[in-house]
């Protein structure tokens, strides 16, 4: 029997902004790249996002945020991931994350940060290249 692994991605909207056009475009692009994309819907707490990632056993979490609360919410999410043992999940982020905040985000472990104007192909390629291999 052959192994039929698929890349599973959670697209999550943390915090209180209610604009998910970007998140949906990304979800669609990843779907068309052959991935299984789970979307949480709007206004998710860090607990909801991490618990969903755990239940869905995703390989990648994509966080979309426009509210400016990334400096509060992203550390909470990364901490919860650590607590639950989900340290081998690739976390990427998009939306409005000012240039000066990027180093801080990278220090948290969110290395792939994609602002407005990023081509979807770039994100897809990043995921394929950086996704943790499962043994």
């Amino acid at each position, binding site marked *: *029997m*052959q*192994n*039929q*692994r*698929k890349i*599973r991605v959670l697209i999550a909207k943390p915090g209180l902004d209610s604009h998910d056009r970007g998140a949906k475009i990304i*979800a*669609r692009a*990843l*779907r*068309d*790249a*052959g*991935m*299984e*994309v*789970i*979307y*949480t*819907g709007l206004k*998710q*707490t860090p*607990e*909801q996002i991490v*618990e*969903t990632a*755990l*239940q*869905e*056993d995703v390989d990648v979490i994509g966080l979309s945020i426009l509210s400016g609360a990334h400096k509060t919410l992203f550390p909470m999410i990364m901490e919860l991931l650590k607590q*639950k*043992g989900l340290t*081998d999940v690739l976390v990427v982020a998009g939306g409005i994350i000012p240039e000066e905040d990027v180093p801080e985000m990278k220090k948290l472990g969110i290395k792939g940060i994609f602002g407005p104007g990023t081509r979807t192909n770039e994100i897809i390629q990043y995921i394929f290249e950086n996704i*943790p*291999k*499962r*043994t």
Partner: protein
Amino acid sequence: MRTLPKIQEIARGVLAGDRRSIARAITTIENNSPKAQELIASIFPHTGKAHIIGLTGPPGSGKSTLIDKIIREYRRKGKTVGVIAVDPTSPFTGGAFLGDRIRMQELSTDQGVFIRSMATRNYLGGIAKATKNAAKVLDSAGKDVVIVETVGAGQSEVEIIKVAQTIVVLFAPGLGDEIQAIKAGIMEIADIFVVNKADRANADKAVMDIQAMLQLNSKERMWKPPVLKTTALTGEGVSQLIERIGDHRLFLEKEFERKRSREKAEAELVEAIKEKVANSIIEELKTEGKLEESLQKILEKKMDPASIAEKLLNKKFKKQVQK
């Protein structure tokens, strides 16, 4: 590298109700990884306690929203719930957008609830190939109720009967007239009919259409499927639905369980044999490099697929005897 725990560790975790282990177990089954069988073998003796409920119906009839309310009702009664929500895989790209849990997301942090989205991976019949065994994982993990939401089903997506004990078929007013109700398929597999969005006009008409259809049944059935109304958005009618689901389970235990369980066991065995035999023949063809040859015969219309299959099977049996 992502190192995965050993399969026996995962199995032990599942039986202890550990959420990470449950998630990993379902992935293992979905990916049809070589260890999946070992996993299923370890958990199988611990299955059979949960009430497995199938919920099916056309796209947009409100399945996910109703499940959200059903879970809440069971939680109020102190029951734990597992959900497998199936959505279609794109036949073109192999990708999928799994959006069912959006409607249940408030429950995602409830430790008594486990929700898993699942893509069909092009399996036909309204569920995924892994759905049945994923339900067993949730069952063996101690969930009292396991709900399987099929893809938005048309008329012939009836694979759910191989998974669930109680099948709820959901409709919404205005999706079809009495002619639809006479058709075979999902109309025949229902143990309980639900007309959702009952706050809309025509809800009573839909109920009547279904009831009229049921009266046309020539066979006298021991269980008469009730026709209920719900409004999933407000939760109206959900507690009555739960009651009837409970009634159906009692009925199964009393009258029917053994027959249906036997039928399900037979179907599962037949399917497992098919898969094992098919795989072993296909693998052999591939290693011998004869797959192309057989395909060419079909393409050139020299031989039909069934005849080739018969020949291959005979050949395989002879080989076994010689050994």
